[in-house]
């Protein structure tokens, strides 16, 4: 008899079963996200031949990501370089030859400050924007509308954004590196009174070509993270305005955490 069947509540289950569920649920949810993100990446590759759809949109996105972010990226890099210079001066003046400060400032900007500060900045600026845009499109049925017209959302919405990140973030990081070094140099000249010759000698003496490549490789990885993750999170948004808000926060936090993890992983693997 159906009426005699009583539901077993979670509270009545033995403690090990409850504990297993507590662990299993987030693990399964995380695996679900990894699987869906993987499927999205596959869709992006499959959309590559549809270049007539994604190229013009990617150019638009490049302008928004690159030109739109240039001012804040350059400003942040300038202040980072200046502060790195002041702190290096404070720590090392009198204890090591001054020309080494050139190396310390340039290497910290190229290897760490330029790519990571730019990545974190763009995770907020571009990541939040992409997650909110795509999330709103999802909850207002614009994504469904695009599909209903026989258009591929991967080539029209996702690929242009990811390509823009892959092209423009390395360019922005190069600009940030150059600005950070110049700002550090100018501040070092005025506060530590290092000569131009000492700064240039120190910078050149310790610089390896690979350092520049390392900065660009990190930028490329961060460019993918700050576009792909927000695109995925926004694309999967549900439940109206609250869902879009949640997606935006999740996108920025996830992108920032992944940038920091990748930063460490790449340092371990490549240096």
């Amino acid at each position, binding site marked *: 008899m159906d009426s005699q069947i009583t539901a077993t509540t979670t509270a009545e289950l033995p403690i090990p079963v409850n504990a297993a569920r507590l662990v299993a649920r987030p693990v399964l949810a995380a695996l679900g996200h990894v699987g869906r993100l993987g499927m999205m990446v596959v869709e992006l590759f499959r959309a590559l031949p549809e270049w007539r759809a994604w190229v013009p949109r990617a150019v638009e996105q490049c302008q928004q990501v690159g030109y739109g972010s240039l001012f804040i990226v350059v400003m942040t890099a300038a202040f980072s370089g200046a502060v790195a210079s002041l702190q290096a001066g404070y720590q090392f003046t009198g204890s090591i030859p001054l020309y080494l400060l050139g190396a310390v400032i340039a290497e910290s900007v190229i290897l760490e400050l330029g790519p990571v500060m730019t990545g974190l900045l763009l995770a907020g600026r571009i990541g939040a924007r992409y997650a909110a845009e795509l999330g709103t499109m999802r909850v*207002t049925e614009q994504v*469904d*509308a695009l599909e*209903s017209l*026989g258009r591929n959302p991967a080539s029209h919405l996702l690929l242009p954004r990811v390509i823009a990140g892959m092209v423009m973030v390395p360019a922005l990081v190069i600009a940030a590196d150059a600005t950070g070094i110049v700002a550090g140099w100018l501040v070092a000249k005025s506060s530590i009174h290092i000569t131009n010759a000492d700064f240039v000698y120190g910078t050149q003496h310790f610089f390896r070509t690979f350092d520049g490549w390392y900065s660009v490789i990190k930028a490329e990885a961060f460019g993918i993270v700050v576009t792909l993750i927000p695109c995925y999170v926004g694309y999967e948004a549900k439940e109206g305005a609250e869902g879009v808000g949640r997606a935006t926060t999740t996108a920025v936090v996830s992108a920032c955490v992944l940038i920091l993890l990748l930063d460490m992983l790449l340092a371990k693997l490549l240096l």
Partner: protein
Amino acid sequence: MIELRNVHKKFGRHVVLDGVNFSVATGETVALLGPSGSGKSVLLKHIIGLMRPDQGDVLVEGQSVAALPRKALAALRTKIGYAFQTGALFDSMTVFENIRLGISDDEQYRDRSFCAARVSECLQMVNLSDDVGRLMPAELSGGMRKRVGIARAIAGSPKYLLYDEPTSGLDPVNADAMDALIEELQKRLHATSIVVSHDVRGSFRIADRIALLHNGRIRAVGTAAEFMAAKDSVVREFLERDIEFAAHTEH
């Protein structure tokens, strides 16, 4: 022809479609009635492949929509125009660009002069002027958004038209104008159409047949006359409530 065979769909534990059997003949217009939340829009999304049934099959032109590979599904979708309840216009594009995106043939889509002529024609068909093409969706009223959504749906000259609640949220005068527009489009385009609605009077006006979706199943199907003569208690209750309300508001 559109055919739904024993279609089941549930979200979590909530059963929305519970064995829907339903067909629409070529060139026919069917109004799908039902209370809010009865699964009418979900059913439409199955027809265009935006949702897949948990069980059962949806056939359009004899092809199983859920089983179609990606490219074949995209090709099928170009034959179907879907007018969304809220318009679902792309808010970063002008009205012109929105309607242009509805042109399904790639060569025609790239031909600027063809697009300008086709967008203008579609705007005229939904009784809007060419000037509206320059506006952004945020600048349109609710009724205009619905019209632009219909213009986008018909821009690719589809063989099938799916209207999702075209009169919801409109005042009675604009709802009547929308019904007249759908009637006029049916005469001009001869598309096989499904109009999802909970407006009984409007449905009687525009549809060849009417179907009532209740508790996840098609409760009744028939012409307007057959519906009015139906003895089924659920059909009577649905009809009387709407007709009484309409009579009350007319007085």
